[in-house]
């Protein structure tokens, strides 16, 4: 169930009422169990609604990591544990490799063979990638590694663990929760908390605005220009690249805020995955604000085991590059994603070398640093969005060589003139003048006016066609 669908509008209130109804109907500890199993049934049911066979893959990943965690815990010696963890990791990654990377790997292999003079036609699989596969696989892998490093105890209750992997608000696009955050919440009975529910509704509203008014509107312009970039002027390509930066932010942050909102309405607290990323003053800082749960996962399970930054400078740079290579590969089976990861890794190495990864000293250097970071991130997104690296370079060359006025469709830009200033103003105020925002928030009239305006804008300017989220395909 995607949050911007009509199904969500009628089904989620029903889930909400039944979920909290369970807590009232059964007294004591059983209430928590009934509500928990109800959520598990809803999570699996919603996934099965998309594809029943692929639900088995979700179940398989859950089963493998659950049992391998128990096996790992039984072994005290690290030597034996190592074999078990690698067997578990390999089995867990198997569906991801088959569904997402098989064609890419065989294609790359065939190119190498061709290069040395052997003509090979690799078999191609035309299977759809299971929804949220990368997200729930990484979440389950994180659990396995945490048990391996003895950070947590292996879970004994299979039902609780199933819900941890399949929790429906986050299964499609994350955030990737850590077991020590989500599992204790699953285990403990929840009481309805009005304040938490209200904050959940606020996140839901803001996330919906980001998705349907900002991201999907910008997507129309981006798709038009990037379908035939050379047909339009270079400034149109530049504008499309900026629009795409905002689109992917609205799309992914929008989903994450909605997931956070839905989880809060159900009494759960999950990680806030975005924290005004385009106001970061360096690429390193950008990654502490963008897809925070993935950055945390990569840091915990890739960067630190490689040695992190507590080794020589060169090894630190190598660790950064390897971590962002994994990040690129995680995003998709295409050289464009790998190249995008390399750009981000290289930018952070340069920043570290020049000492620019630290917060700027004077307040006057903040704005130039924000703009400079945005330019780097923005150009990297061009490769992320286009189908090949070559086309990415072509667009960048076109930006600098064809400076005629940009193509502007009046209706699209009317919509943009509404959405972009609101998002920019909200993020800038939250970043630099949180006191003023909190002050305004105290007035009921201001608060309710904001809710009514956002809801009205969603209904009048939003793209209400249940458009898919970009990150679902990752």
């Amino acid at each position, binding site marked *: 169930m995607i949050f911007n669908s*009509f199904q969500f509008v009628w089904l989620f209130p029903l889930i909400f009422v039944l979920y909290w109804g369970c807590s009232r109907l059964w007294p004591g500890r059983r209430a928590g169990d009934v509500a928990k199993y109800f959520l598990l049934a809803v999570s699996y049911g919603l996934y099965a609604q998309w594809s029943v066979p692929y639900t088995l893959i979700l179940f398989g990943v859950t089963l493998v990591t659950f049992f391998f965690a128990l096996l790992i815990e039984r072994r005290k010696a690290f030597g034996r544990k190592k074999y078990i963890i690698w067997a578990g990791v390999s089995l867990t990654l198997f569906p991801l490799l088959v569904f997402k990377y098989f064609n890419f790997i065989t294609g790359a292999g065939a190119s190498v063979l061709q290069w040395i003079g052997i003509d090979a036609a690799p078999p191609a699989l035309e299977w759809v990638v299971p929804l949220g596969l990368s997200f729930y696989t990484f979440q389950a892998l994180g659990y396995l590694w945490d048990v391996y490093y003895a950070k947590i105890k292996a879970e004994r209750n299979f039902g609780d663990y199933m819900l941890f992997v399949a929790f429906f608000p986050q299964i499609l696009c994350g955030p990737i929760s850590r077991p020590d955050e989500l599992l204790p919440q699953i285990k403990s009975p929840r009481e309805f908390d009005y304040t938490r529910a209200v904050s959940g509704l606020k996140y839901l509203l803001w996330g919906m605005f980001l998705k349907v008014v900002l991201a999907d509107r910008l997507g129309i312009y981006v798709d038009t220009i990037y379908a035939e970039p050379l047909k339009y002027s270079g400034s149109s390509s530049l504008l499309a690249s900026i629009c795409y930066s905002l689109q992917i932010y609205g799309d992914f942050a929008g989903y994450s805020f909605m997931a956070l909102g839905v989880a809060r309405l159900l009494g759960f607290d999950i990680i806030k995955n975005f924290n005004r990323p385009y106001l970061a003053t360096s690429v390193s800082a950008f990654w502490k604000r963008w897809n925070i749960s993935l950055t945390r996962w990569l840091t915990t399970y890739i960067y630190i085991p490689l040695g992190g930054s507590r080794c020589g400078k060169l090894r630190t740079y190598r660790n950064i590059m390897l971590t962002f290579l994994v990040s690129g590969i995680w995003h998709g089976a295409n050289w464009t994603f790998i190249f995008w990861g390399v750009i981000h890794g290289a930018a952070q190495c340069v920043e570290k070398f020049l000492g620019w990864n630290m917060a700027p000293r004077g307040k006057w250097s903040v704005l130039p640093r924000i703009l400079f970071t945005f330019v780097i991130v923005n150009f990297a997104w061009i490769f992320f969005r286009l189908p090949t690296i070559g086309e990415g370079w072509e667009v960048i060359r076109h930006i600098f060589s064809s400076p005629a006025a940009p193509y502007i469709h*009046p*209706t699209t830009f*009317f*919509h943009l003139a509404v959405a972009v200033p609101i998002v920019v103003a909200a993020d800038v105020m939250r970043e630099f003048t949180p006191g003023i925002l909190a002050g305004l928030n105290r007035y009921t009239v201001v608060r*309710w006016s904001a809710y*009514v305006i956002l*809801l*009205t804008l969603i*209904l*009048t*300017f*939003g*793209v*209400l*066609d249940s458009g898919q989220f970009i990150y679902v395909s990752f």
Partner: protein
Amino acid sequence: MAIMMMVDLAVGMAAGLLRQRAPGGVTHKAEYIRQRADEELVIVGSSRASHHIVPRILRDSLGVSVYNAGMDGMGIVYNYGVLLQLLRHGGVRTVIYELTPWNDYLTDDNGQYLPNLRNAYGVPGVDSLFWSVDPSERIKMMSGLYRVNSMLPRLGFDNLSAATDTLWGYEPLWSRYAGASRLQEEDPSVSGKYEYDPLKIDLLKKFIRTCRERNIQLVFSVSPYLDRNYSYRYGMALAEKERVPVVTFRSEPQFFEDISLYQDPSHLNNTGAELYTRWLVGKLKPILADSPGAGRDTI
């Protein structure tokens, strides 16, 4: 909730007023079709209808009143709604249907055809068109805010635009195409892979049946294009089966040799449209002379 209902009601009412008062643009066209269009010959279809067929030439040559109801990006879902509106006003005797495969029988997002019909939701039969595309429209359309979703900027622009009544729905294009022709013979191995949309096909058949029942002469038209991405095989087969006459530019070399007649590979400019309409008149005359209501016609 009460505040939102009031806002919903107020925006819905304001949008209704803006719709009715728009002197030009698509808003005016949609309102004209809903309220008054009673011309004897009506052209329906996508942008290839609205930019390609000049009512003035048809009117002068055939001696009948003509309106071009073509609308950018629209297909059978919208066109069937237009037919239902035309039937309320009587008058229509001939419909020229500009076929566009993607919009009329191949699969794409049928939801895109509904916004331009929202003003006619109250017309009998139009509401069920919405529900056949998406059952949730039955609930969504209760909201005044939803009814103007994505339309407010256009409502504003159309209220500020100049009146376009003198063109009878025709929307001329003025620039010249600078590229090369991409026209190719249709490749059956490619067109065999297209997915056909059951809802569109059902509505297209309904359109043909309704015209036959109401004694309306229906003519399918395939106006000029230079683009290779069109698949007319299904449309031609259906026309043959249902005995709907077809006028296609493919028999006239001028339309695929002279690229100065085009604005882009899919659209004629005004020069091309005038030339094509004159050529079309010659093809239409014998068809209309043999039509069921020929006795009422003035040709």
